[in-house]
């Protein structure tokens, strides 16, 4: 649905995006991750047709972003980092204006405005001036304007920024509900958001692609071993040797007041370990996976560490 090939963007001497390539399939949600000034916003601006690229190619639903910008703009909704709102307009008249410039036919405009208001739960502020509503509501008006023309593709630049925890959950749910019919790219600094909403990630740093793919595949490529952390009622160094005797286990170490038991990826030694502990009545208090969290994954990709 969205394909980016060898994209470059120069601002004067500054290379904001260098040789960026990735692809997002139809109906998927992908997260665009990276530190500040990594080129996330620039990439999104290029995809939406706001900025031209210096070199490279980008297509959305088969339309070339540079050759057929109007076709792309018609099927794309965009929520910029700074939500574009006219403070002196009411929520409803603003959405009506957006419906007009997004070229929704006059007969369907009213319905589209109503639908976007109810999707973003803006009923309570529809008649108020945008300058008088709270930050959270403004963000939701931003999402409403991006959805108003029922776009096939959504580009959301930090959609949950400035919202309170309850609203964040609401917006995440909204984004998840949109999945299926629409292809979505969102950028965020909240890594938990990615694991909860996204199918895959594109991680960029200093304008360069660091990694891209589904979360499982990325984790697998960075982690060679699986493992668990366990805590027993009574610890002790002597148990390390016991654990090492369990077939398949490669490595045992102590951490905090428990043990990290690791084995080669592909097997699953959890059953054996549990049985071993229960048979000896050691008192299993806690057992959790040592799988790479999104934070760890992100840091490893950005810093280039693999293990």
């Amino acid at each position, binding site marked *: 649905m969205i394909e980016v090939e060898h994209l470059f963007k120069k601002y004067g001497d500054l290379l904001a995006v260098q040789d960026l390539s990735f692809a997002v399939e139809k109906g998927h949600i992908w997260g665009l991750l990276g530190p500040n000034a990594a080129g996330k916003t620039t990439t999104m601006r290029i995809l939406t047709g706001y900025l031209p690229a210096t070199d490279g190619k980008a297509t959305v639903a088969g339309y070339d972003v540079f050759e057929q910008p109007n076709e792309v703009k018609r099927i794309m909704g965009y929520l910029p980092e700074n939500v574009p709102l*006219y403070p002196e307009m009411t929520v409803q008249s603003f959405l009506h204006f957006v419906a007009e410039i997004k070229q929704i036919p006059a007969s369907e405009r009213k319905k589209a405005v109503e639908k976007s208001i109810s999707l973003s739960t803006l009923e309570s502020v529809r008649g108020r001036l945008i300058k008088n509503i709270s930050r959270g509501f403004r963000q939701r008006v931003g999402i409403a304007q991006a959805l108003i023309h029922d776009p096939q593709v959504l580009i959301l630049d930090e959609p949950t920024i400035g919202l309170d925890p309850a609203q964040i959950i609401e917006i995440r749910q909204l984004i998840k509900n949109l999945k299926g019919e629409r292809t979505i790219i969102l950028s965020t600094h909240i890594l938990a958001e990615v694991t909860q909403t996204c199918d895959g990630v594109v991680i960029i740093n200093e304008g360069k692609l660091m990694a891209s793919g589904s979360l499982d595949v990325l984790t697998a490529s960075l982690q060679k071993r699986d493992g668990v952390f366990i805590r027993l009622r009574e610890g002790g160094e002597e148990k390390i040797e016991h654990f090492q005797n369990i077939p398949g286990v490669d490595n045992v170490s102590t951490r905090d007041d428990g043990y990290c038991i690791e084995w080669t990826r592909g097997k699953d030694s959890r059953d054996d370990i549990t049985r071993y502990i229960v048979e000896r009545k050691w008192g299993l208090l806690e057992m959790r996976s040592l799988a790479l969290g999104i934070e760890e994954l992100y840091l490893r990709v950005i810093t280039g560490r693999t293990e």
Partner: protein
Amino acid sequence: MSNVWAVCKKEIKSYFTSPIAYVALTVFLFLFGLFFQSIILWFNSYSMQMAQNPYYLQQMNINQMVYPSLFHNVSIVLLFLIPLLTMRLFSEEKKMKTDELLYTSPISINQIILGKYLASLFVLSVMLMLSGILSIFAFVYGNPEVKPILVGYLGLFLMGAAFLAIGIFYSSLTENQVVSAALAFGTVIVLLILNWASIAAGGTLKEILNYISFTQHFDNMTKGILDTTDIVYYISFVFLGLFLTHSVIQSRRWR
């Protein structure tokens, strides 16, 4: 065309939901009234003096003695007010980052510019139309000719339209409204007084300066003389202003 209308409607609404349009209208109508009244009063007392001589009284003419100087004075008022109407048109979009919404919608730069320009032209038209009400007094107490007055108004409208195009160009250059207004103001003044320089110049230069100057073309129209050259002159200024605006916006996005 519906895109142009959408932008135009939004801008007209924003003129009238903010104080800008009301302030501009009030100041313009107040000053228009003041000039109109003082020139009429002067014309009245002058007529009294001339009343003793039937021949001179015959020569007294509202069209020639009141309207040309009224239009000239009012053009100076427009010079001050028009930068206030245009300064925010693009500067504010850029500052509030709302341009991102416009430029990522299926609507062309030309349509955006035209929509905004037509909205400012609408405010100018309202200003001029409301000021026309004062002329009722001229018709009640005298019998001026309508055509020269209309030509004079056309002159004011065309000159205002050219001012607006220059203002919109400066608004596209900067996100600072004060800078945009000051530059527009300076440029319009230069264009108005360019014919002063032509007095000192001679030959072809004199002709060129006279042609470029706003005043020379406006002068004809205040006297009720309608010449296509003058109309073409102002319209080409409008096109130049809008074309430059388009180039600025286009080039900004490519940088």
